[in-house]
């Protein structure tokens, strides 16, 4: 059976050249980069090269890059590390209702520990209102945390404008850029961000490695205390092979970034058009234009997301759903909820996220199998007016 992967926002395959670059660091180059002897030196250079590669992709300086274990760790460090470091200045954080759980659940934890958090609402397209953001800033505000691109809908926040507001009020600005890095040009200088989080496995590096950009001079209290690695900002022996992989993945992502994004956008748009033309009563979720080039989120009225995904899976297609059933919770996607999407439609939201291996044939295949699947599930649905 044909196998089509359309879930690149969840994770991406390890790029073969990345794996090749990593293997020597599992085999012969086993030294600890903190060691002064030959074995350590052989490895520390590779870690520093990776730091440069990551920094280059986002226009940062290598000294501003701290390696982490994943995006969630980066977000936790950004939020908890800032709150601890700036507690003499205030205890108020502004974030948005549609952040990844790595941010939202960290905010919830911080609230239980004395922080005040403002959750900015979003409109029907998943966009925040900059005037509301500015109005939410108080004397106690120490941090704005707003993602670059939404993982479910792909909606891209006006990062540069948020950065300008943060600068104006001298508030620190963190962005979870896990979905944006490698898909869009990301420039920490132009964007005016102070903290930016990257996850390796979203861009062809392995799982278990990430990075956070910490603007020079930004005080941070580490999450993990221990040795002096990463200039005392993140203790723990380096995941050398993973870091090497992340570095190369960043370099590869930076090559032809805009052409690759344009190719994915064209494919995504073809899929979107094809679905809207072939299937009645569908709703595209997210911003019509300010959207990650690879992401399409669609609700199919009258049917439930998991049922759709299981049918897809039986035809070899891997996609994702905002349905409660697939998330382990009983609530449908908080992102759909914040956008005011009708609850039944939220249960049916389906995300197609494209990546480097996605092809025209993949899109054609999905457009071929999707209409009968939707029709069959609708026939079975007590909600479908066509049955009445």
């Amino acid at each position, binding site marked *: 059976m044909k196998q089509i992967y359309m879930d690149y926002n969840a994770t991406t395959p390890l790029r073969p050249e990345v794996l090749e670059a990593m293997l020597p660091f599992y085999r012969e180059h086993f030294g600890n980069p903190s060691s002064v002897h030959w074995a350590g030196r052989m490895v520390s250079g590779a870690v520093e090269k990776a730091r440069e590669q990551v920094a280059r992709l986002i226009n940062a300086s290598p000294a501003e890059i701290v390696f982490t274990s994943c995006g969630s760790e980066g977000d936790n460090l950004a939020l908890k590390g800032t709150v601890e470091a700036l507690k003499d200045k205030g205890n108020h954080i502004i974030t948005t209702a549609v952040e990844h759980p790595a941010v939202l659940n960290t905010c919830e934890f911080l609230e239980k520990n004395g922080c005040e958090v403002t959750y900015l609402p979003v409109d029907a397209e998943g966009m925040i209102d900059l005037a509301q953001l500015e109005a939410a800033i108080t004397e106690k505000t120490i941090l704005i945390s707003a993602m670059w691109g939404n993982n479910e809908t792909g909606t891209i926040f006006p990062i540069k404008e948020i950065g300008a507001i943060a600068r104006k009020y001298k508030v620190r600005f963190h962005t979870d850029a896990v979905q944006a890095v490698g898909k869009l040009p990301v420039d920490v200088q132009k964007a005016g961000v102070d903290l930016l989080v990257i996850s390796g496995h979203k861009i062809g590096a392995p799982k278990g490695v990430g990075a956070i950009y910490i603007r020079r001079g930004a005080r941070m209290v580490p999450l993990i205390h221990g040795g002096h690695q990463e200039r005392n900002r993140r203790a723990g022996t380096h995941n050398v092979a993973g870091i090497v992989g992340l570095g190369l993945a960043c370099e590869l992502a930076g090559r032809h970034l805009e052409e690759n994004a344009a190719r994915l956008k064209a494919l995504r748009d073809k899929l979107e058009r094809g679905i809207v033309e072939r299937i009645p009563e569908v709703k595209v979720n997210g911003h019509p234009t300010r959207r990650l080039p690879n992401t399409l989120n669609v609700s199919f009225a*009258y*049917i*439930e*997301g*998991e*049922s759709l995904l*299981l049918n897809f899976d*039986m035809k070899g297609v891997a996609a994702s759903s905002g*349905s*409660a*059933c697939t998330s*382990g919770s*009983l609530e*449908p996607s908080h992102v759909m909820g914040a956008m005011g999407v009708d*609850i*039944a439609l939220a*249960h049916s939201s389906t995300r197609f996220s494209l990546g480097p291996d996605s092809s025209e044939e993949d899109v054609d295949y999905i457009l071929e199998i999707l209409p009968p699947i939707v029709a069959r599930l609708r*026939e*079975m*649905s*007590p*909600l479908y007016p066509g*049955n009445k």
Partner: protein
Amino acid sequence: MYTEKVMDHFSNPRNVGEIENADGVGEVGNASCGDIMKIFLKVEDNIIKDVKFKTFGCGAAIATSSMVTEMAIGKTLDEAMELTNAAVADALDGLPANKMHCSNLAADALHEAIKNYKEKQGAG
């Protein structure tokens, strides 16, 4: 995640549809929890002669709806009232824990349809 039997009933659901002029109709669930099941009954001489269903829901919801229709056909109304959600899950060789309470409502829908039939009989 799902047993072979669940996937079988999900892929090839039995007794999908509606019964025109059904003797009893039962509906449970709501869109906010993601599952709605509607069961239609045809009853003759206190025995369930035909059952059909319509379901909006996940794989477990569709499979349990399908299974309960198979289990109910041929049973007396009293026997069908004794069918439990747990028995339906057992007949499917089990369901994932998180589906047991949110998507396993098919027996409840059947019971509602039987109650509806009895109410109609009483009213008649």
